[in-house]
């Protein structure tokens, strides 16, 4: 038997960092990615950087999607990236939510792979995840 399933589906961990809000948006993204043929490991609300690292490690995630709506992205997202690197994980992190343009560069600088605004189409969302996973060293 040779290398069956080389083109296995991408595995994406989806979570919301911090204590805020609802996970309606996150669920929409989960469905978009599933419909794009990916496997979504859904963590939902109230996640910490530590719990996301755990999941990414155990699930061998190809990418992590973080949703944030509480303007905490400038501290939370870099913390997340750092926690991953500390665990020797190079999983790309994609931030989704309302991020002011001026902050996007700072996030990218901090190691976030991509930022998706609320207006992104389903196709854009899926493609962004694919691109990030393909680069994700």
């Amino acid at each position, binding site marked *: 038997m040779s290398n069956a399933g080389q083109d296995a589906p991408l595995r994406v961990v989806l979570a919301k960092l911090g204590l805020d809000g609802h996970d309606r948006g996150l669920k929409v993204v989960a469905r978009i990615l599933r419909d794009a043929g990916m496997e979504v490991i859904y963590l939902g609300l109230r996640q910490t950087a530590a719990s996301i690292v755990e999941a990414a490690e155990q*699930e061998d995630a190809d990418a992590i999607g973080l949703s944030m709506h509480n303007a905490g992205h400038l501290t939370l997202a870099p913390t997340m990236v750092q926690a991953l690197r500390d665990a020797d994980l190079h999983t790309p992190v994609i931030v989704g939510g309302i991020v002011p343009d001026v902050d996007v560069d700072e996030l990218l600088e901090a190691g976030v792979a991509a930022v998706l605004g609320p207006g992104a189409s389903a196709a854009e969302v899926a493609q962004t995840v694919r691109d990030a996973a393909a680069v994700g060293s």
Partner: protein
Amino acid sequence: MTPPESTPPSGRARRRGSVDELYAEARKGSRLALGRLLTLVERGGDAADSISELAHTDAGQAHIVGITGAPGAGKSTLTGQLVARYVEAGRRPAVLAVDPSSPLTGGAILGDRIRMDDVVVPGEERSVAFIRSMATRGHSGGLALAVPLAARLFDAVGYDPVIIETVGVGQVEVDVVGAADTAVVVATPGMGDAVQANKAGLLEVADIFVVNKADRPGANDVRRDLDLMLDLSHVTGQEDTNYRPPILMSSALEGAGADEVVKAIDDHLAYLGTNDRRLVRRRHRVRTEVRARIEQALSLRIEAEMDSNAGTEAVAKAEAAELSPTAASTLILDRLLGRT
């Protein structure tokens, strides 16, 4: 033994390290390495075969526990409660949570982990438990290979017990759980669950029944129905007519009844140990897996033979009614078996 590294698609270059190295690291406790090995197990192929060879020598210690039942019965929540108790007792549990892939897109939303995390890590930094989600990926044949191999890998790197959660609908899913040392079937009030369990063939494989959501009305009715079916059924337990599966009540959301489930699982293992029943169960498991592997290898051969020139020609003739389907299949089968 280990084949040369296959070139991964771009971007997955991070999955470096030979299977041997990853396995050695996983044995030393690296979760990163274990996570990657599980990915290789899921993909099948040469790397998975190498992992099978490696794990085979080190496995055999863990108690393999299957948990199944209707969608939404509370399997994951209950599993989370069990895991929390195992961790507390100083054990190192692993969970393999299997969910269906979408037959249309091949994608999946794997939502078991969230229920377990709610229980296992309430603010806690790190649990010794290892939880892995697995999608069925459309081909049940693959599942029949990947699940037992993943369980063996967990066993080989030191996890015990190894809990496998599957939705009790497909035959493969039921088989996978039925091949565990201890099979737990979760039912709930209000959906004629006992009858459903019976139809799905779950009654035959159950070593323990749990009526979950006992906080809801009708739980006692389910217990009574199950009891009745056990009375009526000649099959009590898989291969032993003296064994009668206990029926426990639980309310997994609050954790009520989970201690009793843990105890029943331990008791069942002790029971298996009193004679050669565990061996019988394991032989059955090995036999099932060997068969599944042969079937998968054969089905690949069948595809290849049907796609060959002679195969295509035979099928075309059958389509044109120049050959009967029987004659066409005999032709292909003869080639497959080297009878030409």
